[in-house]
């Protein structure tokens, strides 16, 4: 069959690839709130008053930034599963507790993305002068409000470029989840090429779709940065 027939024909694999592409985008988008949010919490812990908390949060970052992302995903994935098995044994449950591969993938990616984005948030938090919090507190805002109403709105602008880089890494890291039985874009391409023995066509198509995502992300990031910087130099 021709390349066009294999991709877009009635028995073509284009639909599977598109579905996989949607799963890839979903993995990325669902991970963002947990990964970036976790990174912000991590950054808060790194600037903590207590030395032990600072040390532990630094150790977390060093560990997950220092090992291959693939290994981190395996550790979280298999670690979670063996914890669940232990829980099942101790609770005396009959059926095995299992995580869906998608949920496990999101958790694993979030753990890694939190380590990466934590560094970005720390750098952003340092750019807000302490006088701002002091002023907000002396105006009668409690600590929570001082953070959410005064500090956080200023962080976005400074953190955007760094978070954009982390998003690009995340989008490409979702492809690692294909090794954990989630039919994302790369796994869809693998299935299509195994059934048709046309790997160059399907991996090439997958690469083209990833490239479109990354170009679109760059454009989106530039637009967000323009919007965040309006009114500032």
């Amino acid at each position, binding site marked *: 069959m021709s390349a066009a027939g294999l991709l877009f024909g009635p028995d073509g694999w284009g639909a599977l690839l598109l579905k996989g592409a949607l799963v890839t985008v979903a993995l990325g988008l669902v991970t963002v709130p947990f990964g970036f949010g976790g990174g912000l919490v991590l950054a808060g812990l790194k600037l903590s008053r207590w030395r032990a908390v600072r040390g532990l949060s630094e150790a977390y970052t060093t560990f997950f930034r220092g*090992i291959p992302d693939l*290994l981190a995903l*395996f*550790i979280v994935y298999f670690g979670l599963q063996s914890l669940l098995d232990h829980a099942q044994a101790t609770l005396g449950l009959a059926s095995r507790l299992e995580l869906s591969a998608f949920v496990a993938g999101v958790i694993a990616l979030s753990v890694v993305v939190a380590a990466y984005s934590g560094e970005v948030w720390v750098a952003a938090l340092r750019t807000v002068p302490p006088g701002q919090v002091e002023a907000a507190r002396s105006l009668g805002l409690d600590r929570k409000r001082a953070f959410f109403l005064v500090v956080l709105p200023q962080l976005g602008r400074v953190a955007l470029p760094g978070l954009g880089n982390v998003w690009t890494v995340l989008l*490409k890291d979702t492809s690692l989840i294909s090794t954990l039985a989630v039919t994302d874009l790369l796994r869809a391409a693998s299935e299509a090429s195994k059934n048709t*023995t046309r790997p160059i066509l399907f*991996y090439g198509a*997958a690469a083209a779709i990833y490239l479109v995502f990354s170009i679109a992300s760059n454009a989106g990031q530039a637009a967000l940065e323009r919007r965040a910087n309006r009114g500032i130099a």
Partner: protein
Amino acid sequence: MDALHGLLGFVFNTELLSQYGWRLLSGVRITAEVVLLSCSIGFVLAYPICRARMSRNLPLRSGAAGYIAVFRGTPLLCQLYLVYYGAGEVRPWLTGAGLWWFFRDAFYCCILAFSLNTAAYQAEILRGALGSVSRGQREAAAALGLSPYRVARHVVWPQAFLAALRPLGNELILVIKASALAAIVTLLDLMGQTRLIFARTFDFSVYLYAALIYLAATEGIRRLWNRMERAASKHVRQIEPLKAAHPAPPRGALPIVSAEAVPPG
């Protein structure tokens, strides 16, 4: 106490290490070979790509820009699959060209994919480093009568090297981390051996051992690079003590120059 021992036994298992330690070590050797070869080949490729990217020739420049965008914008795993499985598809052609022995071997496929990938990143690092040397430096050196080779050798490169040092170290760390993907195409590198041991023993601690080895490598390089950067930038930092020896005049003091300025003429 018993619980603590149980927890430690759950996390670390020394029996495993005595039985399978040699496997992990042989994996480390393969990983080191893959990383060193890919990084060096990538560096050699990066320079011409960088020059093409900075060239005035439009087709050359856009070709290099396209190369960089493709290799940085798609997952490395996808690139690796394209090389490894794609080679199988064009096998008759490769055999005819006498290249099949190369593409048949997962080791060489990994080297090829990783080299092409890191070349794109390293080309951008070199471009940034060369761009950080101001134009005036080149112009001044040329005005002093230095030949283009001498301008590059004695003026541009020493400064660009300093700017490129840290990002190149980061890239080395990224290649170490990325090299774990080799395990997915059956190579028995550190990650591959780890997966194999786990498949045989179902002992989770082997992943933690592998993590510690990777961590030692990446942390070691990070620290080594910090030292190298300190050593290489001595001449830049020596300005600091000089500043301390000649403190700025106190605020509000009159500028000396304008006080003694004489009207022209």
